[in-house]
């Protein structure tokens, strides 16, 4: 089974005035797992549905291996899909559910059942062929849905938030399983999610969408460490906004001078974007900062530190949380790394709807 290369070119789709897709361009390489990540309403599901054929773009084309499939009906496309809600046919048992696509293609019963059994073994549920969907747990149902989507050996796999209805533990184990299957089958996979952790942990590349446009597409590490835009920086992971002042190619922030990464806004007064784990705290009775709240998460603790009239989030190792209990005076130090800056928050909030906020600075 080989994955196909999927290209989205200039996709546009309007829903009664609002643009769900606004000129989306994205190329998904053969055999890769790409996650479409973004806030609700960013067009990620619409993009997936355009590939599946459930949605027709107003403009633009969908290419699979260079072939234009934009107007091909959904039932003639070579893509398996797993849905957000449970989608197994309630009237059919698990074996017949998995074999549904083969039945549509008039594959003889014996061959159909053999293939269904093979797939049930692949997803680690070989004994449930005779059961009905309502007798399975949510996680099992989604696994069967995955097996059903793979039964026809499609060259593209589409996953529309398949894990969002499941509880946390099942979600983690199932995403590892999906990844394992995807790698062993080498099938091109588009995974829609609003959960950044899911996207970062599973995908080869993550595409961050915003208001129907592509904001950034990169591998998870790059996306997290070197976000291309302030939107990506704040959407993926947590981000502090600390006022700073531009000086040449550097920025002065919290008494330190750090190199600037990315574009410089037009004004000297900026917000510096800093990850909580790049903030170091040292207890110091003389210092200005004070720990306000500490939320313990096991391996780490996230502290909210007041510093003058701003608040800074800092992630510290879990065992340090005792030393840095709320009320403790602390000195704040930033890790020496290039930082991303954006126009100060007032202006950014006003221009939140435009893709390039930097140009709107007064």
């Amino acid at each position, binding site marked *: 089974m080989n994955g196909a290369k999927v290209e989205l070119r200039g996709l546009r789709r309007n829903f009664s005035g609002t643009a769900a897709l606004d000129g989306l361009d994205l190329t998904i390489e053969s055999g890769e797992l790409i996650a479409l990540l973004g806030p609700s309403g960013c067009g990620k599901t619409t993009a997936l549905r355009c590939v*599946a*054929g*459930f949605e027709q773009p107003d403009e633009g084309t969908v290419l699979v291996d260079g072939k234009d499939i934009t107007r091909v*009906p*959904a*039932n*003639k*496309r070579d*893509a*398996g*899909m797993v*849905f957000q*809600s*449970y*989608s*197994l*046919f*309630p*009237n059919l048992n698990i074996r017949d559910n998995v074999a*549904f*696509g083969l039945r*549509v*293609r008039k594959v003889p019963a014996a061959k159909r059942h053999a293939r269904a059994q093979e797939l049930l073994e692949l997803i680690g549920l070989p004994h449930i062929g005779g059961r*009905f969907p*309502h007798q399975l747990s949510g996680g099992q149902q989604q696994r069967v*849905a995955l097996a*059903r*989507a793979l*039964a*026809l050996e499609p060259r593209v796999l589409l996953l529309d938030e398949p894990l969002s209805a499941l509880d946390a533990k099942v979600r983690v184990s199932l995403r590892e399983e999906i990844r394992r299957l995807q790698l062993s089958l080498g099938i091109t996979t588009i995974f829609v999610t609003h959960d950044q952790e899911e996207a970062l942990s599973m995908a080869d590349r993550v595409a961050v969408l915003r208001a129907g446009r592509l904001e950034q597409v990169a591998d998870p590490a790059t996306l997290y460490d070197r976000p291309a835009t302030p939107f990506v920086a704040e959407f993926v992971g947590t981000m502090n906004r600390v006022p700073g002042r531009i000086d040449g190619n550097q920025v002065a922030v919290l008494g330190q001078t750090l190199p600037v990464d990315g574009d410089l806004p037009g004004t000297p007064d900026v917000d510096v974007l800093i990850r909580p784990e790049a903030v170091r705290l040292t207890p110091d009775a003389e210092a200005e900062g004070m720990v306000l709240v500490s939320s313990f998460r096991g391996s780490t603790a996230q502290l909210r530190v007041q510093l003058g009239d701003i608040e800074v989030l800092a992630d510290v190792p879990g065992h340090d949380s005792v030393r840095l209990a709320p009320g403790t005076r602390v000195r704040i130090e930033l890790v020496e790394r290039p930082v991303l800056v954006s126009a100060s928050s007032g202006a950014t909030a006003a221009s939140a709807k435009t893709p390039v906020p930097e140009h709107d600075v007064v």
Partner: protein
Amino acid sequence: MAALTPEGPMAQLTPPAVAAGPVSGPGRRRRIRVWRGAILAIAAVYFLVPLIASFTFTVKAPEQDFSLDAYGQIFTTEGFGQSLLLSIGLGVATIAVVLLLTLPAMLAVRLRVPKMKPIMEIVCTLPLVVPPITFVAGINTVLQFGPDYLASTPFYQTIFAIQDENFPVVLVLAYVILALPFVYRSLDAGLGAIDVRTLVEAARNLGASWPHLIFRVIVPNLRSSLASASFLTLALVLGEFTIASLLHFQTFPVWIYTISGSQAQVSVAVSVFSLLITWLLLLVLSSAGARQRSGS
């Protein structure tokens, strides 16, 4: 024949839904049980007294002993088989037409234009508001419309053809409209209970054509609501009198009315008999529905 008109089966179908309300506290529960019994008794009197009266009338005429002769005569009375077959035929045709009309339409509205749903609901409920006498007057006017210069056209021949006494298509058309509210209600409930959009998209994604997905995915999952829609339609057609009588077609209810002048006992016997048939159908139907619920 009152129990065979639409109100009859509906009245029998509604109580279970009402009885499913929440109950709290042992004292309250007992009081509710007493009330339940009282209401059941009142309902039983209301329904059973006319039935028992009818039955008594058929088996015991004044100055005669108990006899089931009237029931024996049903099958030998002229016109029985013919009119019953006609009514059943009309019922089956009506069910086929009304389901073929509403199911695809309701699916299309749900999947493509959900905004149209209230409009469709109003249109489908409208027949309840129009009195049958108005309805039949309208049909009559249309059927009598036929200026002479149209005499040789297919239009004229169609008007004649749909009034064929052996199988009056015009009645099927009229009954389809009368059945719309009931069919719409039961299909709407059935479609509401399954995630139609996801099932349709899953089936499309697996390569199913529209007919395939309707017959293999939608219909099997709507079995009980399709069955109840069919049953309500059949009951309606088997009991409908006004339209058939005014258009001069000899359907089963019209036939019962016709013979009641000459053979009063037989006509009541037929009524009791047809009531039993209807109940039998209802039993078959509800057990089919129950089997599906435990099966899926």
